[in-house]
């Protein structure tokens, strides 16, 4: 009864407050804009992946035609790109592009999908430096601040709206004098404030969830109901954290102005300062090696390798004895020598990139450890992971591309060393990339800890608020 009465009264107060209606309208407009932004990015990715996949088919059929033509007495289109050479067929001309389909909720959270490569051209020259590069040029400002998507609105702006609606949920009643009249009725401050917050939560969370589900519906994300549920759970839990924080601050019996100052301060620290400080600390404690250093190492290794190709080939065969007998001609061809040089460059690069990867892994470990200091980081983690645009899914994709690149080399390198001539008949046997996407439960398992911690924070602060509200009397 109390809840229904308070909810109806809150609705009337909302309808009577023009400023509040404008704020909610503005928030709704931001949600629409954020979703539209996410959908635009999703469509762009979908088009790119589609183009990449059709490119694979077009390249294969072009090579097929050329090889058939050559088999029928024709000439290669260029003496430097003879598809019969395994260096050409397995090289950039015949490369296969491995692509990652956009995450099922990409329209809601662009996440890392504009930062991390979601497709790689795999050929025999694919090496560790290939994994450090993104083939697309993106506005660096977008990459720095992140796209304006629903996840951004949820993590950064939703708390501000929650605080704007709740910073004075109790103090205003006290200041305007209605608290005494309210608490002279057979109701508790706890039940009244809980109902008032429930109304606000219903409005704010309802708007975000409605927009999220609309986005999911429009982009076919319901194929992954687990991820949708995870997204909703993160939105609800994160919003509740801010609501209970506002409730708790209200129980400190200070003025509305004081509440507003403290809550905005909390937002600044938890959403802006702490995440930035953790990122800066990660960069300072585990600095990434310079990219220039990597490129210089690649060039030095290339120059060195070209000069020592014969020596390198001998070393390669020592390392790969299975290739030594009967595979390489007694007089190694140019292809074999070139491959030996390429392999040497790859090894040198692996040393440089492994250091880069190790530092990055250290950074991630540090950020993951200290993300528990900020509910914003926890929520962002879960939202992006639920959307399938987080680090983990990209790492999963990248590891498969690495394995595919290895498979690709294993297919072509013996032919290169043996100086074989390729024909159209090998094309059906050329490896094809088949992405095994994450299992539906993977994201849920990863989100379990951050979501539990976030839920624990809600309970902890909520209990503090509940105890504080239990002490509120009309004469406060």
């Amino acid at each position, binding site marked *: *009864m*109390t809840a*229904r*009465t*308070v909810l*109806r*009264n809150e609705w*009337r*107060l909302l309808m*009577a*407050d023009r400023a509040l209606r404008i704020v909610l309208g503005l928030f709704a407009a931001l949600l629409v804009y954020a979703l539209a932004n996410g959908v635009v990015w999703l469509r762009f990715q979908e088009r790119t992946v589609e183009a990449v996949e059709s490119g694979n088919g077009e390249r294969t059929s072009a090579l097929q035609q050329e090889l058939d033509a050559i088999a029928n007495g024709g000439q290669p289109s260029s003496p430097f790109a003879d598809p019969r050479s395994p260096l050409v067929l397995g090289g950039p001309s015949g490369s296969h592009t491995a692509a990652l389909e956009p995450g099922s909720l990409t329209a809601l959270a662009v996440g890392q999908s504009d930062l991390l490569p979601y497709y790689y051209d795999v050929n025999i020259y694919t090496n560790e430096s290939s994994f450090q590069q993104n083939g697309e040029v993106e506005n660096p400002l977008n990459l720095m601040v992140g796209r304006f998507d629903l996840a951004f609105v949820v993590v950064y702006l939703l708390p501000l709206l929650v605080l704007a609606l709740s910073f004075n949920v109790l103090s205003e009643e006290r200041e*305007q*004098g*209605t608290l*005494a*009249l*309210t*608490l*002279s*009725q*057979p*109701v*508790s401050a706890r039940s*009244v404030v809980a109902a008032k917050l429930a109304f606000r939560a219903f409005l704010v969370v309802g708007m975000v969830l409605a927009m999220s589900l609309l986005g999911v519906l429009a982009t076919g994300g319901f194929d992954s109901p687990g991820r949708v549920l995870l997204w909703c759970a993160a939105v609800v839990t994160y919003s509740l954290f801010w609501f209970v924080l506002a409730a708790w601050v209200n129980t400190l019996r200070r003025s509305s102005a004081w509440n507003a100052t403290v809550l905005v301060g909390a937002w600044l620290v938890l959403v802006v300062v702490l995440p930035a400080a953790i990122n800066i600390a990660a960069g300072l404690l585990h600095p990434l090696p310079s990219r220039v250093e990597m490129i210089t190492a690649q060039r030095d290794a290339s120059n060195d390798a070209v000069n020592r190709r014969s020596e390198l080939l001998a070393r390669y065969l020592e390392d790969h004895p299975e290739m030594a007998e009967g595979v390489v001609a007694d007089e190694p061809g140019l292809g074999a020598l070139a491959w030996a040089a390429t392999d040497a460059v790859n090894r040198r690069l692996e040393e440089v990139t492994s250091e880069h990867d190790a530092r990055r892994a250290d950074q991630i470990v540090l950020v993951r450890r200290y993300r528990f200091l900020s509910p914003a980081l926890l929520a962002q983690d879960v939202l992006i992971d639920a959307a399938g645009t987080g680090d983990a899914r990209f790492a999963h994709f990248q590891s498969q591309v690495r394995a595919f690149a290895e498979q690709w080399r294993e297919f072509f390198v013996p032919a290169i060393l043996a100086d074989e001539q390729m024909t159209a008949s090998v094309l059906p046997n050329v490896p094809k990339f088949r992405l095994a996407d994450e299992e539906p439960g993977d994201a849920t398992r990863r989100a379990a800890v951050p979501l539990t911690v976030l839920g624990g924070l809600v309970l902890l602060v909520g209990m503090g608020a509940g105890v504080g509200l239990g002490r509120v*009397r*009309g*004469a406060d």
Partner: protein
Amino acid sequence: MQTAESRAGHTPLLEARGLSKDYGDTRALDSLDLTIAPGEVYCLLGPNGAGKTTTINLFLGFVAPSGGQALVSGLDVATHDRETKQRLAYIPEQVMLYRNLSGLENLEYFAALGGRGSVGRERLTEILVEAGLERDSVDRRVSEYSKGMRQKVGIAIAIAKEADALLLDEPTSGLDPKASNEFSALVERLRKRDVAVLMATHDLFRAKDTGTRVGIMRYGRLVTELSTDEIGHADLERIYLEHMHD
């Protein structure tokens, strides 16, 4: 002294038994014993800080007693918060309402909180009119109301709640004489419905005019109790001043 119980022949609706309240080292209320029966209007007189508002706050459960008990219909306020509040209505010195809502909407809200959610809008409008509000004012925003009009909404809330007891904390303070008079008439109407009224006031004239009994408080103590039938306005003023000069 004749008690309200013996006079009215009813169980007292409001009763204080050795009720005390300390704020730190300051004793705001000192062992108050008081009974108010249905149909009685008990006026607490006294200077600021005498303990009048503290007494009302203790009956409302707004503050916890340091000693003794505040009872409503025999139920201890400290242990029966909800039940006692169901029987009480409260009108503070300044009835503060939701300014953006109309008088009727405010009444609907507080009546529903008081457990009278089933009362229809027409009946609530009648109650507001009965409380003295003009019919064409009930749908106006409270921000346009005078203090007297807000007090009338407060009375309407009490009427709608059908409370057994009414606690009034200086309800006519700041009202013009006409509004004060109308207010007294409303209290008299409630008294006739057997509502027990405890009113804290500085207004000796209103206390004599509206009350059935008067208690004079000083330094947290009830120093004397008088029946308004037995004294005139001048007597009350003289007795009050005598106690204040002691």
